[in-house]
Structure formats: C-alpha cells, structure tokens
C-alpha cells in the first residue's frame, strides 16, 4: 500500500518525501479538526458530572 504510493509519486526521492510530509500534515489537520472531536463526542457520557433523577 505505502510501497505503491511511493512508486506512484513523481520526481526524485526528496520531492517524494516532501509530498509525503505535506500529505501527512494534511491528514493530521483533518484528524485534529474534525475526526478526533467527533470520536471524542461519541466517547463522552452526556450526563457526566451532574446528578439527575
């Protein structure tokens, strides 16, 4: 999978590494901005902290 990605990328090794770093940062940004908060909201109990009947 990652091997295929490496072969598909154009240019010399340093260009490919640069592209991979940018790709990784983009993925990380999406995770932190949307995916992680969403997963977090699924994990949190809604009544946490309060007492109710």
């Amino acid at each position: 999978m990652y091997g295929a990605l490496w072969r598909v990328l154009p240019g010399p090794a340093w260009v490919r590494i640069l592209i991979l770093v940018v790709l990784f940062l983009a993925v990380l940004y999406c995770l932190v901005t949307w995916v992680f908060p969403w997963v977090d909201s699924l994990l949190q109990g809604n009544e946490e902290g309060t007492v109710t009947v």
Partner: protein
Amino acid sequence: MIGVVGELLVTAGVLVLLFLGWQTWWQSGVLAAQQNSAAAQQSQKYLEQATKSPTPTPTTKVAPDGTKTADYGTPPVMKAPGFAQAFAVIYVPRFGADWKRTIRESVDVEAVLNSYDAGVGHYPGTKMPGAVGNFAIAAHDTGYGNTFIDVSKLQVGDAIYIQTNEGYYTYRFRNMEYITPNTVQVLYDVPQVAGAKATDRYITLTTCNPPYHAQERIAAFGTLESWQPLSAGPPKEIAAEVGGN
C-alpha cells in the same frame, strides 16, 4: 495482500495512538488553559466593575485560639442569573495554584459543562453563593478541560473560594460521598436530608467517578467560613491569582 493488511493494521494502531495523544494534550492542556484564562478575565471584570459602594466596616472576630479575623457580617446573596450566564469565579488551591473556572447558571451539558470558557455549572434552583442552604455546582471530571478531575483529592479544611461581583466567599471542604448518578438528595438545602430547614451555608460540588467513566458520582460538601467584599481584597491564599492576571 498480507502486506497490505499489515500496513492497514499498523496505520489503525498509529491513528489510535495519535487520538490518545491528542486527547490528553487537548483536554488537559489546551481546554484547561482556555477555561483558566476565561476565568481570569471574568475575575478582572468583577474587580473593574466593583461597586463603588462604601466598604462595610468589619468587626473583629477573635477565634478561641486568639487569632483575629475581620468579620463583614451576613454575606450578600445575589439573585439567580439567567440561563448560561456567568456569575462567579471559583478558586480551589488544592486543584492547582493557578486553577480557576467561571461558574455559569445551569448544568446544561452543551452550553455550560462542555464550554471552552466556563466548565462549571450551577444547579438551577439551588441556592446562590453565601445563602443559607445549598449552593450546588457541577463539572466534568475528565474531558472538556478535566475541570473537577481532582475533587477526590480534597482534604478536610481545604478552601473553596467563590468570587462574585460582590466579594469573596470562603468555603471549607468538609466531607465527600461516592454516590449513584440519581442521588439528587445531595442538592437538598441540607445535603442528603429531605425536608430539613437549613441553618448553615453549604457548598456542594458534583462530578463523575471514576475518571474516564461515568458510572458513579462524587459529591463534595463544604460550609461557608467567611465573606469579604471585593474592596477588602482577595483572601491571602488566592491573592496572587486574583491580582496577578
């Protein structure tokens, strides 16, 4: 084929680790800092808006051991504010020297408890700070700033300071109980005693237990020790925090 599955599994593992790292950093670092600085701003606002009314002259109270303290008499009690309105700042030195949070009316999860700039909510219908009866507040234990994660570390006699636009209310922690989530009796005027007429001024903190789960609750109880107007300056223990921001 095997190679692809392996890479997918490794990727999933890395994602989980990233999530855990993010959660720790985000909840206890970023959110806690945001809630803290929001509380500092709220406190500053009270100091700036401090009513220009004359400072009541304290009488001197002499404790049995001879220590003298200023006594400002019966504490003033504010009216209950509107939904999700900020009305106080809470300081608990046991939770950290710089720990402070804004208190808002209502324990609504979205509007108050999950808020990035509050974290602590007041149970509507329970008393306001300084009133005879029970001033009851709630916060998350873990998540959303880990607001009350250290409630279980309170020790008898620990101070809980509430700052409002009137002054500082000093409560002292007395005891705590591990309860089920439906134990609303802790919100009674005299906590856990149905129908009793209160003569003391109580504070009750509720949060969930154990950390990272929500099967139980902790209720921590305290009573009012003293009150002083804003113009008298903050209690010594939190003086650096109140003035320093």
